[in-house]
C-alpha cells in the first residue's frame, strides 16, 4: 500500500457497482484507498486519463494459480517452460507458455489490468505449500478455497446428520488452511474413485459412508449459510465432462432453492461450460447451455462462471480425479494423479483445444453461449485457468461477448459441428461494455463477498485499470480488434494506490494480501476436538499439531472475521 496520493484526471469511468456508466470523472487515491477529492492535498501525482476507460482492477475469482496441481503440471510439462517472458533483471525471471511460473502469473495479470486472483481448489493437507506458492506470486491480492466435498470428516458428519459438528469443522478447516470458502469438487465422486467408482448422479451412494452427493451439497450449503461466510459454496458439479451432464448440473442447482441470502448467491457453480453437455455420448454430444442458462436466469440465488476454452494449449487440472482419468483415456495424453490423504484427490492432463476438432469447437461454443445467454448479473468471465486456457486471453472472451461480427468471423474457422450442435451461430446478443466490465470486476467481487473490491466508490481498494479505449466513441460490435487489443494491455495498472504496470511494462513489484476467513466465533468449536484427535491419530500421515498454516507464516495475511 502506498502513501502516494493520486489524481486520475478526466477518465471515462465505468463502475457498475455504483451505477456509473461511461461518465467523465476524476478519481482520487490516498493510502491505497479511493477517497473524496477533499481528502487529497499537497503532493499529488496526476495521471491524465483523457479519453481513456477507467475501471476497477480485474478480479479473477476462479483460477488455479498455486498448489500441488499446478506444480505437478509444471513438472510433467517441460515443454511449457520454453517460453521466456522476462529474463532476470529488475524483476524476476518469468517463463511459461500457458502454465506460468509463480512470478509470471502475477506479472501477466498486472500487465492486463487484473489485480486480484483466487486459487479455486486448495488441497487442505497441501495448504502450507499453497500459501507458500501464493506468496511467490507478486502484484495481486489472493485467496484460496479449500476442497470439502470428499473430506472424510464432511462425509462422516453428513452421514450422521450432525450439522453442528459440520459447521464447527468448516470453521476449523478454514482457519487451519487459511482458506476463504467452501469449494466442492465432484462431491463423493473422488472418494468413490479411490475404489474404482464415481458418483454419476446426485443419488449415487459414496462407498463406505452411506451418503449421496445430494446430501453433501445440501449440508454444505446449509452450514455455509449458518456461518454466514463471505462466499457461498463453490461447486464443481458431478459428472463433469460427460455428455448429458447438463441435467445433473441443473439438478445440483435446484438444491440451492430452499436457501437464500440477501447479500449474495447461496451457490456458485463453477466452469459451467464443462457441465453443460447434452446428448448421450461423444458421437451425439450437443450443447445444453440454453437449458442451464434458462434455469440460472429463473432463480436469484445462483451465480456461475463460464470456464471458456481458448483455442491453443491448456492443461486440464482439477480435484476431479476420476474425470482426469477419463480424459487421459479419451485423449491418450499424459496423466498424473494426485492423492491428498482423506481429503480428496486431483489429476492433471495436458490438452490443446483445436478449432477443427468437433468436441473442442463445441466446448468453445458452449462457453460463449453461457456467457451470452445468462443474465450478466449472474455469470462471471473465466477460463478456469489453465483448464480452459490462459487467463491472458480474457480480452478475447470479452471482445467475443460484445461482438457478433467477431463471433461470425471465428465461427468460420471452427468445426461445422457447432452449427448443428449449438445455438451460438443464431445468438444475436451483444453484451455491452458496461456488462462485460461487470462480469470481470464488480460481479466476481460480489460473488466472493469482497466489498472493497471490484468498484471505484469511496472506500474501495485503489486497484484501478486504465485502458486505451474511449467508451463514448468505440463501437465494440464493429471495433472488436481495438477492444481486444486495448484490454490485452492496460495503459496503467494501479494496485493499492501504486502504479505497478504501464503500457505492458512492469513498473514496480508489490506484494498483495492473502485473504482468509475466520468463522470460529459462529460455531461450537469444542464439539469436534475429540473427533479431530481421533481421525488424525488413525488416518493422517502427519500429526494434528503439524497440520495447517499459522498466520505468521504468510507474507501479508488479512483475516476476515465473520460476524
Amino acid at each position, binding site marked *: 500500500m502506498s502513501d502516494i496520493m493520486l489524481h486520475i484526471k478526466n477518465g471515462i469511468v465505468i463502475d457498475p457497482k455504483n451505477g456509473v456508466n461511461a461518465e467523465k470523472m476524476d478519481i482520487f487515491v490516498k493510502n491505497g484507498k479511493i477517497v473524496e477529492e477533499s481528502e487529497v492535498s499537497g503532493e499529488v501525482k496526476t495521471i491524465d486519463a483523457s479519453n481513456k476507460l477507467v475501471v476497477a482492477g480485474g478480479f479473477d475469482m476462479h483460477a488455479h494459480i498455486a498448489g500441488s496441481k499446478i506444480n505437478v503440471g509444471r513438472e*510433467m*510439462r*517441460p*515443454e*511449457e517452460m520454453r517460453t521466456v517472458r522476462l*529474463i532476470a533483471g529488475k524483476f524476476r525471471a518469468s517463463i511459461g507458455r500457458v502454465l506460468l511460473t509463480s512470478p509470471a502469473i502475477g506479472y501477466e495479470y498486472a500487465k492486463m489490468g487484473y489485480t486480484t486472483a483466487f486459487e479455486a481448489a486448495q488441497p487442505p493437507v497441501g495448504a502450507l505449500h499453497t500459501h507458500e506458492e501464493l506468496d511467490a506470486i507478486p502484484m495481486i491480492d489472493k485467496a484460496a478455497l479449500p476442497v470439502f466435498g470428499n473430506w472424510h470428516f464432511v462425509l462422516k458428519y453428513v452421514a450422521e446428520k450432525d450439522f453442528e459438528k459440520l459447521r464447527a469443522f468448516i470453521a476449523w478447516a478454514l482457519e487451519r488452511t487459511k482458506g476463504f470458502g467452501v469449494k466442492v469438487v465432484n462431491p463423493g465422486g473422488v472418494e468413490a474413485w479411490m475404489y474404482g467408482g464415481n458418483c454419476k448422479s446426485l443419488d449415487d451412494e459414496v462407498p463406505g459412508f452411506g451418503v449421496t452427493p445430494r446430501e453433501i451439497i445440501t449440508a454444505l450449503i446449509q452450514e455455509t449459510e449458518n456461518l454466514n461466510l463471505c462466499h457461498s459454496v463453490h461447486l464443481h458439479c458431478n459428472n463433469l465432462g460427460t455428455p448429458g451432464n447438463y441435467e445433473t448440473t441443473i439438478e445440483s442447482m435446484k438444491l440451492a432453492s430452499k436457501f437464500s441470502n440477501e447479500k449474495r448467491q447461496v451457490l456458485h457453480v463453477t466452469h459451467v461450460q464443462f457441465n453443460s453437455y447434452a446428448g448421450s455420448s461423444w458421437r451425439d454430444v450437443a450443447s445444453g447451455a440454453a437449458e442451464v442458462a434458462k434455469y440460472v436466469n429463473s432463480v436469484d440465488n445462483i451465480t456461475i462462471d463460464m470456464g471458456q476454452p481458448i483455442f491453443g494449449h491448456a492443461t486440464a487440472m482439477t480435484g476431479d480425479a476420476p474425470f482426469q482419468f477419463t480424459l487421459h483415456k479419451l485423449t491418450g495424453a499424459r496423466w498424473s494423479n494426485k492423492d491428498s490423504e482423506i481429503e480428496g484427490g486431483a489429476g492433471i492432463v495436458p490438452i490443446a483445444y483445436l478449432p477443427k476438432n468437433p468436441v473442442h469447437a463445441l466446448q468453445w461454443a458452449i462457453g460463449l453461449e453461457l456467457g451470452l445467454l445468462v443474465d450478466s448479473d449472474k455469470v462471471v468471465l473465466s477460463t478456469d485457468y489453465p483448464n480452459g486456457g490462459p487467463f491472458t486471453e480474457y480480452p478475447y472472451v470479452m471482445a467475443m461477448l460484445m461482438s457478433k461480427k467477431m463471433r461470425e468471423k471465428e465461427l468460420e474457422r471452427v468445426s461445422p459441428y457447432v452449427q448443428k450442435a449449438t445455438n451460438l451461430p443464431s445468438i444475436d446478443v451483444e453484451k455491452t461494455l458496461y456488462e462485460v466490465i461487470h462480469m470481470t470486476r464488480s460481479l466476481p467481487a460480489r460473488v466472493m463477498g469482497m466489498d472493497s473490491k471490484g468498484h471505484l466508490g469511496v472506500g474501495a481498494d485503489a486497484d484501478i485499470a486504465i485502458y486505451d479505449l474511449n467508451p463514448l466513441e468505440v463501437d465494440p460490435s464493429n471495433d472488436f480488434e481495438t477492444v481486444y487489443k486495448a484490454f490485452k494491455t492496460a495503459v496503467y495498472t494501479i494496485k493499492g494506490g501504486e502504479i505497478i504496470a504501464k503500457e505492458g511494462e512492469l513498473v514496480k513489484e508489490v506484494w498483495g494480501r492473502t485473504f482468509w476467513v475466520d468463522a470460529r466465533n459462529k460455531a461450537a468449536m469444542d464439539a469436534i476436538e475429540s473427533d479431530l484427535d481421533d481421525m488424525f491419530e488413525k488416518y493422517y500421515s502427519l500429526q494434528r499439531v503439524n497440520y495447517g498454516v499459522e498466520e505468521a507464516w504468510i507474507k501479508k495475511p488479512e483475516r476476515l472475521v465473520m460476524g
Partner: protein
Amino acid sequence: MLILKPKFDFEVSVEMEITPSVAKADEQEIKDFEVYYGKKKVKLSELFEIKKEGDEAKLVLEGDFSKVKWVGTRMDEGEIVVKGNIGDHCGAYMTGGKIVVEGNALDWLGAEMKGGEIIVKGNARNYVGCAYYGDMTGMSGGKITVDGNVGNYIGEKMGGGEIEIKGSAGDFIGTEMKDGVIVIHGDCGFVGGDMKGGTIKIKGNFELVPGFKEVEDGFEGDVNAGGKGKVVKIA
C-alpha cells in the same frame, strides 16, 4: 558466403541461432547480429572474425565451435560447413538446406528436424533426431548421417526421415519411434522400446527389449505398446 572464426576460446557457451540466410544480409547487419555469450547479449563481431564473400546463403565455421549452440536451428535453405566441432542443438527444427560437420557434434543434433540434410564426419553424442522433453514427435523428415559413433537415445519419438550411423550407437535406439528409418552399421544396445512404427536396421550386435516377436524378416513390436515397428538385421 560468410566465414566465421572465433576470436578467442569461449569460457561459457554461445547461444547462436544463426542460419545461412544471414550471409545474404549486408556486412554491418551481420556484425550486429545478436547472440548470447553466457547470459550477456553481444554482437557477432565481438566473438568472431567475420569475412563475407558474395551473397550466397552459405556459412563456413572455422575453428572450435563446440561451445556454440543452436547453429542452423530452424534453417530452411543454404549450406553450413563446420570445419571443426559443433555444439549442442545443431540443426534443430531445420526444414531445409544442408549442414556438414567435419569434426564431432554434441547432443541434440537435428532434434525435431523436418527436412534437409545433416552430415557429420566425426562422432555425435546423445539425442540425435530426438523430440525435446515433453514434445510428442522427434525428427519427422530429412536425413542425418553420422560417419562415426553416436550416444544414447537416437531417434526417440521419431516420426519420419532417416538416420544413418556408420559406426556404433549406445542404448535406447528408436524409443517410442512412430515412423522413419534408423540404420546402424555397427553395434548398439537396447532398441525399440515402446516402438509403434518405422524401421530400425542394424548390421552389428544389438539387444532387443522383451516386447518384440519374431516375424519372417526380423522382429515386430513393441507389442506392449501395440506397436508395428520393425527391427531388422542387415548384412
